[in-house]
């Protein structure tokens, strides 16, 4: 009502009129009511619309309340978190030499801006993302500030977080609509992401750094999963094409590979890495594990890519040939880009699955990733009663990364606009 246009001066003869009442459209009307009224209405409509719904609402509230209360009670009053602060290095870095801590932090500082850039490129940080970052950030700060980690860890983490937001900010300047500038930016980011892993390994190992056998704890999960995913993706493309090939020998070989690998659980293939692969490839266990993870992932991803290939109309390949492109060129510029785009969502699902599956490694192999070192932590006499603390902590760490992956992939899917489909 405040924005009423000024009423023109009434004509001389007109009798004085009462001020006109402005009728607002329904949605404006609603917006003008006090928030308390609106909240009341929302609660009534969404929580207590019928007796049955009221019952369900109370039951859910009771359940959620119970779980939260139990968790809060455990976290703040019952748990003995000393097992985490004392074993912090063991859980995060395993046998990595403590003197080379800066190498770990430098890796974090290299990767964080790239994750921020990915966010900025395909998504915007909404309220929920910021809440998540705040909570996860507070969690890490708590870890770095407590006990003997030293102030330098907090500084490193703060700097990494700042770099995350810098990467985000920079990529927000990239135009959203598809076009040459965006394509260029996306390609640059993809190249940097592809370079990230080798770069991290260089930072960790070269020039008096750690041996591969010293990798352990959460850091080992963080290295193995991307290797498995990227390696799997690279293997999966030729596999999928091979399976779709009209040459029987090739298609049968690829089909056999896919079906055999998918026919046995990952844990079985890890046994292969431990006992059989050693006779074939003489390489450290960590490398054999990487190979197994990539080979395992490839079988699944190949099937998703095959689905993408089959979803393309036949006319796409024909149009490529009709324009004069060779078979290979048609695959490269017409068929694969479209097929891969279609199969991104299931591939990301597979990536999240593999991320969590890295926890299996310590069951079989003498490689000590986070779960393995959790067991090592509670094997210490002092901490034997604290196993829930340790495993809950490991679960939270896994969840933080899995949640981030899932958020980014959701946003990426939604960001695929016209023409990218």
């Amino acid at each position: 009502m405040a924005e009423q246009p000024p009423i023109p001066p009434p004509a001389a003869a007109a009798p004085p009129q009462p001020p006109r009442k402005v009728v607002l459209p329904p949605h404006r009307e609603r917006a003008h009511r006090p928030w308390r009224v609106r909240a009341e209405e929302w609660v009534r409509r969404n929580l207590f619309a019928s007796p049955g719904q009221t019952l369900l609402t109370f039951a859910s509230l009771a359940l959620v309340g119970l779980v939260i209360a139990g968790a809060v009670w455990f976290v703040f009053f019952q748990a003995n978190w000393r097992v985490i602060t004392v074993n912090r290095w063991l859980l995060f870095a395993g046998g990595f030499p403590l003197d080379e801590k800066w190498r770990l932090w430098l890796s974090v500082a290299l990767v964080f801006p790239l994750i921020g850039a990915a966010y900025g490129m395909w998504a915007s940080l909404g309220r929920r993302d910021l809440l998540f970052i705040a909570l996860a950030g507070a969690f890490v700060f708590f870890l770095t500030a407590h006990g003997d980690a030293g102030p330098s860890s907090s500084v490193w983490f703060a700097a990494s977080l700042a770099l995350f937001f810098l990467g985000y900010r920079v990529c927000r300047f990239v135009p959203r609509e598809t076009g040459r500038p965006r394509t260029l930016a996306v390609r640059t980011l993809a190249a940097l992401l592809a370079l990230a892993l080798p770069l991290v390994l260089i930072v960790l190992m070269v020039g008096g750094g750690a041996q591969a056998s010293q990798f352990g704890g959460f850091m080992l999960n963080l290295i193995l999963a991307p290797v498995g995913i990227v390696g799997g993706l690279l293997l999966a493309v030729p596999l999928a094409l091979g399976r779709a090939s009209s040459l029987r020998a090739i298609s049968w070989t690829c089909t056999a590979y896919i079906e055999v690998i998918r026919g046995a659980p990952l844990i079985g293939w890890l046994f292969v890495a431990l006992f059989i692969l050693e006779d074939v490839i003489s390489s450290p266990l960590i490398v054999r594990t990487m190979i197994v993870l990539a080979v395992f992932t490839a079988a699944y991803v190949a099937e998703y890519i095959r689905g993408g290939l089959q979803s393309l109309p036949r006319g796409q390949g024909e149009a490529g040939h009709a324009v004069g492109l060779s078979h290979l060129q048609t695959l490269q510029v017409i068929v694969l880009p479209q097929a891969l785009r279609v199969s991104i969502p299931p591939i990301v699902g597979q990536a999240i699955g593999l991320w969590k599956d890295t926890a299996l490694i310590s069951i079989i192999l003498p490689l000590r990733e986070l779960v393995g070192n959790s067991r090592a932590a509670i094997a210490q006499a002092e901490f034997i009663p604290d196993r829930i603390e340790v495993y809950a902590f490991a679960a939270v760490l896994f969840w933080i990364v899995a949640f981030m992956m899932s958020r980014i992939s959701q946003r990426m899917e939604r960001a695929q606009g016209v023409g990218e489909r």
Partner: protein
Amino acid sequence: MTTETEATTAEQPSANGADRLAGQPDIIMTEGVDKWFGDFQALDDVTLSVKEHEIVVILGPSGSGKSTFIRCLNRLEEHDAGRIVIDGIELNEDVRNLRAIREEVGMVFQQFNLFPHLSVLNNITLGPQKVRRMPKLDAEQLAMELLERVGIPEQADKYPTQLSGGQQQRVAIARALAMRPKIMLFDEPTSALDPEMIKEVLDVMRELAESGMTMLVVTHEMGFAREVADRLVFFDEGQLIEQGTPQHFFESPREERTKLFLSQIL
């Protein structure tokens, strides 16, 4: 070729061009072409020659093999018997021959088959850049000229899904022309279009015909066939039944099957 279905050829094809094709060499020659899909014979002993600059419209009921025939001409389908020679190049297993032929033969599909992940401009520049190794800027300039020619230069930066069906088909024509083909094949180019968009595509095809392009057109647009074609060819059950000038076809077709077909669609 059985006597019963022997193709009848009417007088010299010249209705629309008044002997404009006299003395032109044959650019397409097919001889006894057979094509099988499993047990089904899609093409049965098809022999047809097309002169340079000639406009041939292929008619026939659905399933008569007319699409299969023109798809054999750039080997989207492999023929099982007979010979196909395009501009003196034999179409066979030799990949170099195939490549040479595909560079000379442009094709326009019923479903457009534009590349949805590329902009309109890149749909057109792809062939020249990848196959002819044309520098990017030249390819883009060529693409803009062709978009100008089909009447939609303002759509260059859009994506195919943002265009109407008629606009998409015009882009598809521009894409084929970008390879500077000597021959253009049209496989029911207006069949997937709403009626109000058919004209804009036919207008582009008319202009192309006037410019001297050799064209083979599978279509149900009888108006276009009557006005533009030098010669009509009628297919039924995989066989070439009858061919002749539009005048011959629409006024005095010889074969019973041709008469039946024409009576059903006219």
